[in-house]
């Protein structure tokens, strides 16, 4: 085996210009003093362009093994492998220690980075050294977020005969998926496949569904967490409400419906949508005349059930004890108003994809008729089923995504849902003209490319070229884009523009991360334990993440991830294993263990 004298360490500083990064000098000191590595290089000091010179340096140092450590040192590996080859050594002896792989991304993680270097030096896999002993795990689990990820994770765990508390912020579970009309690429309706799962959640004996609730505090340790939850005042008794809807009929205020993304109106006492689970009413305090002025109370008068509506109900707190927490808080869509050039919020008929999703949905405000936006008597900008029908549509991809000025990442779903929306328009209005403007067509999943080819053959104009602006010309919208493949600039006149808005972390994602002690990446998505190896674990033992809160993904990938999170929870309950939990284990302990296990 290679001894300490035969190991050379090459430290690679961050290329991203972070000032607050891991302290490499401290690591160098540690390596030379504690690990007694004699040869330590910094990649900046090496003439990196030349394998021959590096080979010479390796020869001089007598090293037979090289550890490349730092910020994504893999980028240097091929060069070192080649240099090893030149020296006549085995290129397999170039080891990589990528700090970010295990979440060492700032100077507070210098200790962790040391442990990573030590593990490579002692030739012990980090996960083995960082493994924590088994302990008693509370078998009850908290799932935060009632979208498809939360639903799936809850069902999996509950089907494994374990108790689940599913906490949802709004009045119903279902999340974004419930708002969609059809799902790509099979075009089955979202409601058809989602509602049975929602019903199952509502009926499952092992699931305690807590809607209209928010997690406000988490304390304790992996396997034994205490969670404080605020139950917001629903003002309608869940147990006795029969969902007859008389209250809603008589309720005076009309306010934009969140579920319909403001495309339609709802009352102050309402069910978010007809298939909501629980299918019970709730009162929106912000618009309720009684809550605001103390006058009204019509709903109480007309309600056929005694004492079902209590307009004076207050928020209260609940405390739970759980062993594992699954975080499935989801996403919000990019605010298209941030890019003024596209005219969202300026021109009525520039709509976001989510609004359009409600517009084509048979259960939406227009009953599935695509119409132009109108202003009602009270000034609400809404859609009505009997308004004029737009004849031509432009769908613009990558709104807020793949853009250095907004989100650098790709939102992964927009290409496909845009194709789907184009298809839905064509299906409803065969004579309509639909124009799609894209940069790269990302149809990568099972059946996606086939779907793309099919849409392409349906007479939809699919144009390579990102639209730069939307202008108004006498009531028509002009979409200005370059048609790259036809080599010309086009100013397309359309009636309606659909902006394929990207996904972004929820506004309160930071807050949730703080409560749970999770790490986030630069964009605000929760950081997984290991990119490839453990996409659902986190650095906090007992806390797993699932769905889009970890990064944009489509429904099948979300569902798979949610099930994977459930596997982790079940495993932890069965075995008392709470994961590596880097936030709860000291680097020194890891180093000691690595030393002990070392094969040196």
């Amino acid at each position, binding site marked *: 085996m290679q001894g300490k004298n035969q190991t050379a360490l090459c430290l690679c500083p961050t290329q991203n210009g972070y000032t607050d990064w891991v302290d490499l000098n401290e690591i160098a000191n540690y390596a030379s003093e504690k690990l007694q590595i004699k040869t330590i290089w910094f990649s900046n000091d090496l003439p990196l*362009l030349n394998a021959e010179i590096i080979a010479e340096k390796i020869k001089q140092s007598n090293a037979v093994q090289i550890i490349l450590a730092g910020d994504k040192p*893999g980028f240097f590996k*091929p*060069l070192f492998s*080649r240099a090893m*080859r030149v020296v006549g050594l085995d*290129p397999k002896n170039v*080891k*990589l220690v*990528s700090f970010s*792989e295990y979440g060492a991304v700032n100077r507070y993680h210098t200790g962790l980075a040391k442990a990573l270097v030590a593990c490579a030096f002692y030739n012990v*896999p980090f996960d*083995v050294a960082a493994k924590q002993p088994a302990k008693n795990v509370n078998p009850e689990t908290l799932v935060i977020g009632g979208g*498809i990820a939360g639903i*799936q994770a809850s069902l*999996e765990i509950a*089907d*494994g005969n374990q108790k689940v508390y599913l906490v949802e912020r709004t009045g119903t579970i279902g999340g974004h998926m419930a708002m969609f009309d059809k799902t790509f690429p*099979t075009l089955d*309706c979202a409601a*058809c*496949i989602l*509602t049975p799962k929602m019903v199952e959640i*509502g009926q499952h004996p092992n699931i305690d569904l807590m809607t209209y609730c928010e997690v406000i505090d988490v304390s304790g340790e992996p396997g034994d967490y205490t969670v404080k939850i605020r139950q917001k005042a629903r003002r309608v008794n869940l147990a006795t409400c029969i969902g007859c809807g008389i209250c809603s009929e008589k309720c005076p205020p009309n306010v934009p419906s969140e579920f319909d993304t403001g495309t339609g109106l709802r009352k102050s006492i309402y069910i978010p949508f007809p*298939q909501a*689970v629980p*299918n019970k009413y709730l009162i929106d305090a912000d618009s309720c005349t009684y809550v605001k002025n103390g006058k009204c109370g019509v709903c109480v008068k007309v309600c056929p059930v005694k004492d079902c509506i209590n307009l004076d109900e207050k928020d209260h707190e609940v405390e739970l004890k759980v062993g594992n927490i699954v975080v499935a808080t989801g996403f919000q869509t990019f605010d298209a108003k941030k890019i003024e050039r596209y005219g969202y919020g300026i021109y009525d008929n520039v709509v976001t994809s989510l609004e359009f999703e409600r517009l084509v*949905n*048979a259960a939406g405000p227009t009953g*599935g008729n695509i119409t132009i936006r109108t202003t009602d008597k009270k000034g609400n900008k809404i859609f009505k089923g009997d308004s004029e029908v737009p004849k031509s549509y432009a769908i613009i991809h990558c709104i807020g995504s793949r853009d250095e000025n907004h989100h*650098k*990442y*790709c939102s*992964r779903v927009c290409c496909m849902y845009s194709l789907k929306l184009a298809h839905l328009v064509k299906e409803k209005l065969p004579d309509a003209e639909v124009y799609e403007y894209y940069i790269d067509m*990302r149809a*990568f999943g*099972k059946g*996606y490319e*086939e779907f793309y080819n099919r849409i392409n053959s349906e007479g939809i104009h699919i144009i390579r070229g990102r639209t730069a602006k939307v202008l108004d010309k006498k009531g028509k919208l002009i979409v200005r884009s370059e048609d*790259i493949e036809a080599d010309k600039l086009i100013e397309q006149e359309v009636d309606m523009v659909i902006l394929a808005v990207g996904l972004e972390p929820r506004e309160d994602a930071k807050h949730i991360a703080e409560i749970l002690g999770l790490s986030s990446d630069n964009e605000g998505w929760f950081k997984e334990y*290991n*990119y*490839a*190896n453990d*996409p659902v674990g986190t650095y906090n033992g007992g806390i797993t993440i699932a769905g889009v809160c*970890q*990064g944009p993904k489509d*429904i*099948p*990938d979300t569902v*798979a991830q949610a*099930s*994977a999170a*459930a596997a*982790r929870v*079940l*495993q932890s309950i*069965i*075995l008392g*294993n709470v994961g590596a939990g880097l936030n709860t284990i000291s680097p020194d302990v890891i180093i000691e263990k690595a030393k002990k296990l070392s094969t040196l």
Partner: protein
Amino acid sequence: MEEVRIGVYVCWCGSNIAKMVDVEEVSREVEKLPGVVIAKDYKYMCSDPGQDLIIQDIKKHNLNRVVVSACSPRIHELTFRKALENAGLNQYMFEMANIREHVSWVHTDRAEATKKAKTLVAGAINRVKWHESLDKRHVDIDPATLIIGGGISGISAALEIANAGKQVYLVEKADKIGGYVAKLDLTFPHMYSGKDMIQPKIDKVMNHEKIEVFLNSMIDEVFGYVGNFEATVKAKDEKEIKFGNVIVATGLKPFDPSGIDNYQYGKLPDIITSLELEEMFINGQVTKKDGTIPKNIALIHCVGSRNTNYHEYCSRTCCMSALKYANQLRSALPESNIFNIYADIRAFGKGCEEFYTNTSKKNVMFLMYDQQNDLPKIKKAGTGDNCDMIIEMNEKLSGEAIEVPADMVVLMVGMKAHENAKEIAHAVGISMCGNEFYIERHPKLDPVATTTDGVYIVGTCQSPKDIPDSVTQANAAAARVLATINVAHMEVEVTTAVVNEDVCCGCQTCINVCPYTAISYDEEKNVSVVNEILCKGCGTCGSACPTGAIRSRHFTDEQILSQIEGLMSMQLQI
């Protein structure tokens, strides 16, 4: 026999059905049919209130049969069966008429569609009259799991299950586990080490007390049913194993590019596949066949993918692998010219778009081609070209016909289903789609289960995917397995065949046609006997039986014959 009291429910499915079928008329008309007590239509039958409607009616009207006319039974039969159970009715007293996939979505004439819907409902009503109560059988779940395939997906699933203390049998065809990931030098988009990632896992699997690994082995045929499978592992010594669940992780086969004439693979020396390049990186030596260092290197994306002549689907990982290679080449051969010849860059994963952006800062030339209609052509360079090969292509972003110099061409080959995919599908009883990837139970909501209970598919055998997505799927399947093991027993279908011993004449025709050797001959009684555990309910025996002694439960002659009657009778009424 008790009085038949049928409730019929016609679903609008929003506008999905209601747009093409006059659901109100359907419900009005069928209410007149004999046996029907009540018929209703509702916007979403599958929703909570929809199901409640059925439950309330069963109680109120004392219904003993229910017909729901909605979408495909493949989607919602179980949903409604559960509703029946909740109402205290046997779940088999139910039949579905598919008026969405088979009517409203495929027809254009509203009157005809409505007529057809009525006949289908009438058929279902006639059939349900003959339904009988069946009790689901509880079976115990064997806590062991068989995993077929020892790649990253199989290994991850194995560890996830074994770490929960449950027995795993891992069968691998090759002489070592690790699959294609073990052959990777670096992974995208962070350039982490592939070996460091998988080696500890391999070690753990090989030394895990709860995992028994069979190398150089194959599974012949899996017998039994969920919870109680058994199979023979074929290796040097055969071994019988018993297990409760199967996870299929057979993985992929790289596309063979020698069939694409334009690419000259195998004909010119320095045209290699991405796998061959990967090996060069592992060996620290990227050279041409003559041992010299290539100056111009072209990476051609989408080889065999996104082209209806080869595979229409996208292989999902090649774009990012190609970017990874561009980075590796830039590092190993800083002076080289690198060309990425692509169709669309599909950098959709977490951190991938950023990886693409960074790669373009590394002096890599991106050239776009049409992967369906206009493949680049590789030819040998002439003297004075200063390179070995010339790639002729029509570049789409400039609209120019160009030449690209190359000394080495790397073909980013796509993924195909494994060559044993078909065999394994037969062995475990799952279906494949046209391109030999396995079909999941539901493409969105159940991506790892299959239509065969207890059999799961994970990783690239389901469709091409990258490492995190494969690992996620593997863990997802593990969740399912752990959950069933944890509950320790489950309900199985009882739609098997039964022999009416009074009628059976002992001719043994059924024994010959049964594919599962589920029928044996009782010499003493001179009758055939069905082993209900082995029987999978295909019904072949029933149709072969000359005396009509064998009944296929839930698909009996009476049921189907009266369904035919129903279908046709309605036809004449209108």
